[in-house]
């Protein structure tokens, strides 16, 4: 919980810092503001052109080059076409004679074969360099290792060396360029294909069953970065949202410390816990330190430390949680969690129990 508050405070401080700067930016108009930097994402929190992490930054630099080259080609060919279409249109009193018939020109055709080949060679070499720099990057010993497992329709995050299992909200430390602590993700899938895409951090990589993949992030700024599943995975593909919390190293360590504890339980066992453990809830959900050890659904040991439920589809408020337990299809029709057919008092009791899981 405290980690989350810290991020909010950092966000406020960030906006205060940029306050004076913004007055200056007003001078230059919105175009400059759009480029002003990632403190406040321009146009969209998922803008691919507002990178805060090296892979996304390298892609932006490559795309700037590609866009410049293609824009130049566009302007040239568009102008030629437009000129030809306007200049050579038939006049009001059409000439009865046909225009001169030209069958070709070896020099011209050679020119528009060779010049594009040269452009392609340059573009190819530039792209190849960026591919190598991202895909073959060194894997430092200080890196954080996270195993990401895609499920229909939520994300499981396992930190094998830190003994933490989390769901839907990925926490990683900020990476200081001087002392990089990148995060390496191992991407697995429990069912169908998914794709991990947080545009401001890196390009997307698919999660494919029987085909482990990997990718890495090294965010340079704290904050919350959004994204979502980018490979169609079934009915609720649209609400398989991604939230990546980039924290200072201290906040991240505190979060890990808190997440690695077993669930804090009431003594004596509450009514809600009894209902939870005698219905099918525990077939899919785990609560560390209790009999609930299912793995088909998100681990709920620290449910209340999350901002959202249903893989980012709803804020984690008591009302939403209650509605979710009563009938998940209201928030996410087609999701895999069934409505358990609990009575109102039972739903209230289970909600109260889950609200104790900090």
């Amino acid at each position, binding site marked *: 919980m405290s980690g989350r508050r810290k991020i909010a405070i950092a966000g406020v401080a960030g906006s205060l810092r940029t306050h004076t700067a913004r007055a200056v930016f007003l001078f230059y108009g919105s175009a400059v503001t759009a480029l002003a930097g990632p403190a406040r994402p321009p*146009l*969209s929190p998922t*803008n*691919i052109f507002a990178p805060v992490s090296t892979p*996304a930054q*390298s*892609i932006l630099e*490559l*795309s700037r080059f*590609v*866009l410049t080259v*293609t824009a130049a080609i*566009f302007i040239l*060919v568009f102008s030629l076409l437009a000129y*030809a*279409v306007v200049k*050579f*249109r*038939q*006049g009001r009193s059409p000439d009865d004679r*046909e*225009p001169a*018939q*030209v*069958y*070709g020109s070896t020099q*011209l055709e050679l020119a*528009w074969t060779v010049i594009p080949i040269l452009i*392609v060679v340059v*573009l190819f070499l*530039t*792209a*190849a360099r*960026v*591919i*190598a720099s*991202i895909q073959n990057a060194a894997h430092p010993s200080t890196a954080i290792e996270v195993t990401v497992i895609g499920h229909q329709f939520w994300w499981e995050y396992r930190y094998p060396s830190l003994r933490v299992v989390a769901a839907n909200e990925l926490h990683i430390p900020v990476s200081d360029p001087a002392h990089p602590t990148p995060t390496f993700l191992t*991407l697995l899938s429990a069912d169908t*294909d998914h*794709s991990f*895409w947080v*545009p401001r951090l890196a*390009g*997307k*990589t*698919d999660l*494919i*069953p029987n*085909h482990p*993949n990997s990718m890495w992030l090294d965010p340079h700024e704290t904050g919350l970065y*959004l*994204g*979502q599943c*980018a490979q*169609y995975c*079934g009915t609720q*593909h*649209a609400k398989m*949202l991604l939230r990546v919390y980039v924290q200072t190293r201290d906040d991240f360590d505190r979060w890990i410390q808190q997440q690695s504890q077993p669930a804090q339980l009431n003594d004596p066992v509450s009514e809600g816990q009894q209902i939870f453990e005698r219905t099918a809830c525990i077939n899919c959900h785990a609560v560390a330190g209790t009999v609930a050890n299912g793995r088909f659904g998100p681990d709920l040991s620290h449910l209340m430390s999350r901002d959202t439920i249903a893989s980012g589809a709803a804020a984690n408020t008591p009302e939403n949680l209650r509605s979710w337990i009563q009938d998940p299809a209201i928030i996410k029709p*087609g999701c895999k969690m069934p409505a358990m057919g609990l009575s109102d008092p039972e739903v209230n009791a289970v909600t109260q129990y889950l609200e104790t899981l900090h």
Partner: protein
Amino acid sequence: MSTESIALPLSGVSHRPLVEQLHQWVTTVDHKRLGILYILYALLFLVFGGVEATIMRIQLIRPHNNFVSPQVFNRMFTMHGTTMIFFVAMPILFGFANYLIPLMIGARDMAYPRLNAFSFWMTAFGGLLLYFSFVGGDGLYGAGNAPDVGWFAYAPLTSQTFSRGHSTDFWILSLLVSGFGSIGTAINIIATILCMRCRGMTLAKMPLLVWLNLVMAGLVVLAVSPLTAAQLMLLVDRYLGGHFFDTQAGGSAVIWMHFFWVFGHPEVYVLVIPAFAFASEIIPVFSRKAIFGYPVMVAATICIGFIGMSVWAHHMFTVGMSSSANTFFVLSTMAIAVPTGIKIFNWLATIWGGQIQFKTPMLFCVAFLFQFLVAGLTGIMLSAAPFDWQLGNSYFVIAHFHYVIVGGILFTLFGAFYYWFPKMSGRMYNETFGKLHFWLFFIGFHLTFDFMHIPGILGMPRRIYTYEPGRGWDIWNLIVTVGVFFQAAGVLVFIGNLLRSYWRGEIAGSDPWDAWTLEWSTTSPPPTYNFAAIPVVKSRRPLWDLKHPEDPDWQYE
């Protein structure tokens, strides 16, 4: 050469009883009738696919909209993609190929008329199977009708585990059946072009449309076969306990992707090469000039055909291939830009120095030139693998390939419709309505597909039935949806114009455009036997030679 033909007793034909006329259409082996059947069938499916697209766009007009359920939305994009590729684009292009190739090479029919009829009815049956899934797809209570696995149906979503009921079976069978039809037609086109040309028409004197369709047919044989094989493997997986793509039993989801895109990318060229073919016939006639650099145009097409077979994995840059595999597919994909660029420059050079007549077919082809330029350039952006890691599977990709398929292929197809409608029906279309269609569709196309690039850059993935507010996507989606209604209005004007002109249009005569290829030397519509006497040609533009005996083409070729 001979341009006369024997007049048909047309009046006698049209007064036969309706049942007899329909029977003639169902049992016909005439390439012209089969061509028209293909085209009408595809137009019907164009309306289905258009309605599906409209439903999706209404759902996406604002965030958290509730126009349709996620299940229905997922069926809509699956059916839209499958319909538009397999039951609109391919049949309509086969239809034009069927109709035009024998006429353009001075033949009386295709090489295998009965295979031709068989292929059409297989394709037609495939389309019916796909749509029958709306009725018969449930199989299990609550399993859902109509396939909802996406048009490229990635494994393991298609396995029994994730796709219960029969909707996926209908998808598999319909593509299997229509795939046989496509391969049959492709073999027929190749055999016709290689064996049925009239005297004097060497390969180097064929109209460009014929050359390009030859390359297209070769690609169909090479590309549709692996798709058909993959469909059989998937059926084995689903019903005979196979594990090709069954990841839960050690199968590979990635193998399906390779199978699909080894078909899927050449398929893009299967569709766009005939579009190039239309442009290569229409642009010269309305610029009043011979095509610029015919040998280079042919070479560039063959080049696109070959390179097009080696680029498929650029659809898979995010699948986690090795850096060397990614690098190879960047190179092969970018290489395609060279022959494609040659084509655009050669069309430009054809226009250069001409006298452009802006009749409706030419309007569509000029718009095609500009739009295909943009589609090619966004293609270069996507070919740079790291850029694709951001743009892949986003709305940018949707905008890019609709720029190819609508801005490129559909625009030239509309041009082809107006250009050959007088030949097929014997009557002129209405030029005013033709231009109204063009402008409505042009405005709608640009509203929809220009603005669709932006949400992709802002991180909006494809195939989502709804999206969160506050992502900066709302306004762009609204504009995109508004454009759809302009396009729909354009298509309505088009269909109205064709219907009205079929009954009330002016009589066209055999050569309304003062054109140069053999189909314009016979009557409109041509008699069953096409030519009273098989023509003999000396150049690529036999009718130019006839009209300009003082300056014939064969002196220069």
